[in-house]
């Protein structure tokens, strides 16, 4: 009578352990990092979808499903869902303030990316002091010009364009 009980107990415990392990792996593989300055979250999986939220560089994003090049993600607030294009995300973990350990790990593996390392603002500044003839202020102005989603929509409509959007 005791033996089967003990057997069941072992198996239940093993089962619980296995489920816990699988669940942890599933969550692990369903998390991605934002690899752009501002990761746009859209209402629908199309470039025509309005932007409903933004993630910051390096943020970990929870992935729910995939449709073409779009991932359904949990919003930054934790409540609700939206869609992000795969070009904004990476499977690598982005380390925002890398220490020596991260640096050596990143050099040897494909799982880590370091924010602010390698070619960065400091290197650009150094390059600029060596090349004072280059005008970066025009580049800054170029980057400052932004276009809203509403402007894109109006441009499509006014021009009688027939953008279908869709998950490509």
């Amino acid at each position, binding site marked *: 009578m*005791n033996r089967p*009980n*003990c057997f069941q*107990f*072992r198996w239940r*415990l093993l089962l619980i*352990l296995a489920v816990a392990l699988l669940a942890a792996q599933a969550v692990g593989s369903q998390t991605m990092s934002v*690899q*752009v*300055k*501002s*990761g*746009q979250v859209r209402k629908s999986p199309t*470039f025509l979808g309005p932007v409903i939220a933004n993630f910051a*560089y390096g943020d970990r994003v929870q992935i729910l499903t995939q449709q073409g*090049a779009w991932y359904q993600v949990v919003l930054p607030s934790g409540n609700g869902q939206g869609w992000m*294009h795969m*070009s*904004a995300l990476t499977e690598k973990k982005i380390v925002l303030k890398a220490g020596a*350990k991260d*640096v*050596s*790990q*990143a*050099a*040897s*593996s*494909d799982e880590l*990316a*370091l*924010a602010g390392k*390698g*070619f*960065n*603002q*400091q*290197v*650009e500044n150094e*390059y600029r002091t*060596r090349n004072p003839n*280059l*005008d*970066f202020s*025009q*580049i800054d102005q*170029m*980057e400052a*010009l932004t*276009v809203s989603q509403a*402007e894109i929509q109006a*441009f*499509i409509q*006014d*021009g*009688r*364009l*027939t*953008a*279908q959007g869709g998950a*490509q």
Partner: protein
Amino acid sequence: MNQTSRREFLMFSGRLAVLGLGAAAAGRLLSGCAALDTIAQSGITIPVAGYNINTASIASSVKAVSKTFEDITPEQEYYIGRTIGAQILNKYRPYNRIAAKRYINVMGQTLAQASDRPETFGGYHFMIQDSDEINALAAPGGLIFITRGMLRCCPNEDAVAAVLAHEIGHVQHQHGLQAIKKSRLTEALTTLAVEGTKTFGNEQLAGLTRAFEDSITDITSTLINSGYSRAFENTADVTAVDILQRVGYNPNGLMDMLQQMGRQLKPGRLDFAKTHPDPKTRIEQITPLIGPYRPVKVIKNRQNRLEAALKGV
């Protein structure tokens, strides 16, 4: 009996856990060793587990992890792109008429959003350049430049869209980054691997800046002087056709632009004639994709806004 079995089981699980942790730690140590490989050749002294170790003494025949342009993060691509942009601006100055600037940016953004790479680190930005030369250039990461001379080759909005979509194609496929010689990336990575603090030391900064300068030279000499390969140009054209169709433009706009350019390009000039395949060749390669040339139907709204925005260009 039950009690004993439970204890046995718990001990067994405990051993398993210890074994697992041990394996994980061993894995860590091993990957740590792999990291040392990349910095072994540089011969610097690094503290490892409380000891100072000179990496030159570790091994001379170690393998560095192979890195290619694909390992350049979007953030690093962004900094490369900014400097390439500044170099392009050194060649042609900006044309800053607000209506024209706005028009090109809204159109460009619409096209970029429909591409397979709508998001880059710093986003897409477009600039008209004040030159009669026929040229359009893209810096890595999404800074795109088009000259007034090129805009004059575009009889309709679909043709302007074709030029921008072609440049977006170069950004999407990272053609600029592929011009960087592999040795530069290895140099940058080696410097990076020995650097662990928040900011670079003088020596590391000098090393990285050297690798950066060389990478910029690799790209500009391809982009501005020799041009991309025919294969890359064709890929950009194919991508352009795709983007144009997704947004609802007539891909024959690309044909219109190429025909006009074919008439205006003067051989021997330092513009598109030098860095791009002959327009005729490009037309021949696109034709199987979109069928025989059919003129772009003029859509009044589209034509009116083009003429209003690019008045005087």
